[in-house]
């Protein structure tokens, strides 16, 4: 039989993030039964005591951005025992919100928060694929359920999952939303942002703020210039392209036109 039903050996590792994606996994609503029926949780600290980091895993989901050195070591070890490794959520995929700090010097950042910084061992925020090869991305903040579903069912079937890789505008059009950029002149990030959310923000009457991070090959400089034409101040444009995913060249190129994107230690 082609469809050999074997349980997937699952590992979930969390680095710097809000754990929202891990919750999303638990929140997987009506599929939670199917999910747990079809996976063996080998390592998932938020859902299970014990567990082994050693794997081997069929599927490893990485939640969170890399901000400390030990995470890199663990990540590299995990990669070696993972057949399929997917970063989940914006933090792991493109640095997400934690990467906002990259545009200030690390020392300044530490001093803003702690008086005694001797116990702080942070490094600049990096997405997972800066250190290991990944087999795809489940984007979103929190990660998209459609892609998560695709990942599970594809691996059960034995194929490479195909994730959403078009812009938010596509979903806006499918829904027939009024375009907030053109009709209201709001600085919508939808054209350069990876879809998957169902164009949530425009459907809720607000401009997309790019929480899913950049679409592959997005032309951020063109949109940034358009924002300028629409009357946005340079620092506001800079902020729009550095809120999410400025570790990725797509957004960085847009931000760079209006500010300096990375700071040394």
């Amino acid at each position: 039989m082609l469809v050999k039903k074997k349980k997937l050996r699952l590992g979930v590792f969390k680095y710097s993030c809000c754990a929202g994606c891990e919750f999303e996994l638990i929140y997987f609503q009506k599929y939670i039964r199917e999910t747990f029926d079809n996976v063996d949780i080998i390592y998932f600290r938020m859902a299970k005591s014990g567990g082994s980091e050693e794997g081997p895993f069929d599927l490893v989901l990485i939640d969170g951005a890399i901000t400390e050195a030990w995470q890199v070591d663990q990540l590299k070890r995990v990669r070696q025992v993972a057949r399929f490794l997917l970063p989940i959520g914006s933090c792991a995929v493109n640095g997400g919100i934690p990467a906002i700090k990259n545009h200030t010097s690390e020392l300044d950042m530490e001093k803003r928060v702690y008086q005694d910084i001797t116990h702080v061992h942070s490094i600049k925020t990096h997405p997972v694929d800066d250190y290991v090869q990944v087999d795809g991305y489940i984007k979103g903040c929190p990660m998209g359920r459609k892609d998560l579903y695709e990942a599970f069912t594809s691996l059960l079937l034995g194929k490479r999952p195909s994730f959403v890789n078009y812009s938010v505008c596509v979903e806006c059009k499918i829904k027939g939303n009024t375009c907030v950029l053109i009709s209201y002149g709001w600085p919508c990030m939808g054209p350069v942002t990876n879809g998957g959310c169902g164009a949530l923000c425009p459907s809720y009457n607000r401009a997309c703020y790019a929480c899913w991070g950049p679409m592959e090959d997005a032309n951020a400089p063109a949109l940034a210039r358009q924002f300028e034409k629409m009357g946005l101040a340079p620092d506001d444009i800079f902020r729009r392209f550095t809120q999410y995913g400025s570790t990725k060249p797509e957004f960085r190129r847009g931000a760079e036109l209006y500010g300096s994107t990375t700071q040394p230690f």
Partner: protein
Amino acid sequence: MDNPHYRVACLLDVQPETEDTSSYLFVLEDGGDFQFSPGQFNMLGLPGTEEAAISFSSLAAAGSGRFTHTIRRVGNVTRLIGELEIGQRVMVRGPFGRGWPIEQAVGCDVLLVAGGLGLAPLRPFLLYMLENRGQIRNLVLIFGARTLDDMIFQIDLARWQEQDEISTIYCVDHLTRESNLRLRTGLVTRFMDGLDLDPRNTLACICGPEIMMRFVARNLALQGYRQDRIYLSMERRMRCGTAHCGHCQIGAKFVCQDGPVFSYPDIARFADTAL
């Protein structure tokens, strides 16, 4: 016929060709007949994997409903087909497209140039020529692959090189080991001079990577071969096979319906090709 129209075919036999390529013999499950001509293709799929365009690598056997595909395992459909066991099934739509211009071969010299897996769609054409050898004049096959291990249809190749009806030139980029095939080293374009062919009266059929087809076609044109008798088989992303999904368009052409076999000038006039 309405599109899409799915049929189910059963895997009868698998013949490994290279490390990542095998030939698969299928038979239609509904017992129906299956007619197709050399150069045409099927859309093969499994529930859950969408579909892939795959050329026929055999000649249609009247009344049998049997057909062979030679498939390299590169993606979802092709890998899962690679995992099928004998007796398991696939979903088939087809045949689609326009194949090699068989009728134009009559009374001409015929040159076939294939690169790598490109021999698969040319094989049925070649078999047809051999079956109807009397209708054509000289028949030449030039087949190139990276190494011997990348050469598909080695049993055929060995037979053809001994046959008088056809002259063969097999070449590899690197000679890795000895075999009973007479191999030369170099790209196919190196062996295209001085062929026993009449440039003004040759049907040239090329299939392989686009960049290779470009060099071969240009080389032939330079040698004075008639450009409108040079034919190429193009590969594009395909979703429907019926000129609806638009993915395979090159300029005004739908590869799936107007092709995949095109005459060189007809397709080279559009951008978006390496030709």
